[in-house]
């Protein structure tokens, strides 16, 4: 892999963004690449915005992805997707889960949830991949499999063989959840 790949994973605390970044890190390790990944813990866990930065390449210095540097944004929630849109390269891809989780200002009526997010994204120079992840995961009988479905969609855009991803899944997913996550990966890969 000649060029560094920058992947931003964004969502709401509790959506399982962490496992996705762990699997990505393992893929880098198996491919003998350098990797840095960074996330913010603490208050952000309490239902706030969460963000994980993953950078893969020959030699990585900074653990952060800055504005206009992300090749891919994996957005677990629509509002979080557009919150971090400034970080996407002009020709980058945003994979966006069709799910709305209202933040507290919206719940108490102090703000409105933005409308027409997909329609607006269609107009941008970025590539937008809309995934009905919540429904797909429900179909598998496990809503928590959302993270691996979304990751598999991103996997297709990255220069690694499918076998490497499958090995990384085995390495990183707890045994009792492996089968469902393998199904989830297959589902996302074939979307």
């Amino acid at each position, binding site marked *: 892999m000649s060029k560094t790949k920058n992947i931003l994973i964004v969502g709401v605390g509790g959506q399982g963004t962490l496992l996705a970044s762990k699997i990505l890190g393992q893929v880098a*390790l198996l491919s003998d690449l350098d990797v840095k990944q*960074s996330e913010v813990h603490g*208050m952000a866990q309490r239902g706030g915005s969460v963000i994980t930065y993953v950078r893969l390449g020959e030699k990585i210095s900074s*653990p*952060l992805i800055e504005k206009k540097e992300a090749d891919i944004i994996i957005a677990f929630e629509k509002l979080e997707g*557009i919150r971090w*849109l*400034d970080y996407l390269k002009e020709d980058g891809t945003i994979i966006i889960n069709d799910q709305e989780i209202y933040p507290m*200002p919206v719940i108490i009526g102090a703000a*409105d949830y933005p409308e027409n997010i997909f329609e607006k994204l269609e107009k941008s120079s970025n590539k937008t991949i809309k995934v009905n992840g919540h429904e797909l995961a429900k179909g598998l009988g496990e809503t928590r499999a959302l993270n691996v479905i979304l990751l598999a969609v991103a996997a297709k855009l990255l220069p690694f063989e499918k076998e490497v991803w499958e090995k990384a899944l085995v390495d990183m997913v707890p045994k009792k959840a492996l089968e469902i996550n393998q199904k989830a990966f297959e589902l996302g890969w074939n979307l």
Partner: protein
Amino acid sequence: MNIIKKELLSGNEAIARGAYEGGLKAAAAYPGTPSTEILENISKYQEVYVEWSPNEKVAAEVAIGASFAGARALTSMKHVGVNVAADPLFSFAYTGVNGGFVLISADDPGCHSSQNEQDNRYYAKFMKIILVEPSDSQEAKDFTKNAFDMSEQFDMPVMVRTTTRISHSKGMVTLEDRKEIPLKPYKQNVQKYVVMPAQARRLRVTLEERLEKAGEFSEIFPGNKIEGNGKEFAIITSGVGANYAREALGDRATYLKLGMTFPLPKKMVTEFIEKHKTVYVIEEGEPFLEEQIKALGLNVIGKELFPNMGELTATMIREILLNEPAKKNQDLFRAEDTPIRPPVLCPGCPHRGVYRVIRRIKNATDAIVTGDIGCYTLGVLAPLNALETCICMGASVSAAIGFKQMMPDRKVIATIGDSTFLHSGVTGLMDAVYNKAAITLIILDNSITGMTGHQQNPSTGFTIRNEPTYKVDLEQMVRACGVQHVFKAKAYDFKGVEAAIEKAIGINDVTVVITEQPCVLIEKKKEIVTCQINSENCQDCQVCLRLGCPAISKQGDGTIAIDQTMCNGCSLCIQVCNFDAIERVGGTNE
């Protein structure tokens, strides 16, 4: 054959690993973001004695005792924790160590989860102890491991200082085996271990001598090195700043990358500056390196270009040194149309109902309500809006005393969690009793240290390794402080909480209310119970929305619904509904 084993570790995991490899025998800490995972990871190594202490001062002193006993010892804390532990550490610099001693200070530039962004590198200079600053996980492991040797060689504690982006970023780390180091012999030695004035004055002199030797060592410390040979820029850098500098300038610059920044390698720095026409200092936070360098009479450019606030970025360095234009934002979505997502109390959080009652009482009686550090600090945010102060661990109680003594006609209510109360709230409570400040203290007991991710504490009955142990009885403790009026209530029981607080504030004496309910994230339920809206009865009064529960929201069609995957059946919404429009579904909530 030696197989090189690599793992992807966070800075905190790497520190734990480095300490383990370096022969660590004892570790103590109080949880605090971004430092918490250090001790959690150390607890997995059975060779090490490990404890959650009630606060950072106790943790440091436990580790100091272990060092005196001859063990390699470590204490870890967030930056503001060092304020609490500063008292023993300053004098410990005088006595020096027996077994190697490492202090981890995890700073939080940008205040991701902290009340300030103090730059603790100044503490090392102030305490006169060695300071190392890793810039990635590999260095975090290596420097921590080396720090024990350095501590024993120079007879002083060593501070390993990380920042959030070091502690919580993962990178490749090469693992090595543990070096088993036996206890060094301990001999009673009052000349060394007792800092009475006469001895302190003598130790003060030896401290300077030890520091001078450490300064000579910093010239040959392998983490202090010149990297690259770019011709356009000469950079002196340390910590996470080194990563951003390399990211921005790549091979256009030559870097003097410093891993040991106190005592500074003066010769190395001087030679580097003499070789280059212009030298920039790129460091996140305060001008710690810059001030030391300028004090040598040398000329560098630092904080007149780079900010001393918040986090540094590669983009910032490019804009400043390469004159790159600022990145343009996308124009599809305006920031003002993208609502913020502040952290919230979880659905079913036991604090929510208590703060709702407090806010009502505050509004009705014009009471002053002080707050403290923990999940419950979120009680300041809409729609709860219950708190009006938050300073530091324990300050809710003591600041309430100050309010009450100056404003005797106002009701004053302090709110604090179980772990924070034991950390440093109890001393304030003694003061309230002793100096007759008629405040009401509400202890929100959720049986865990919540905000940092569920650590045990002296009131939970379990150790860091989940072994059962004795537990502090909060009620007995409060009574032993001399409090005459103690009330208890279940946190999910609105009426009970309300009655307890109203009774308490009606008494013109120190009163304590303990609200009990384990954190919703640790309580294991046998049956799943949830609350649901009965839309036939719902009058759309929205009182349930004003609870600020993330599970309850207005839908696109205007109706109110409760998200069944988030709800845990705490029943607060049922209790506030005036129209019987919310009901429980599922089994009994026992």
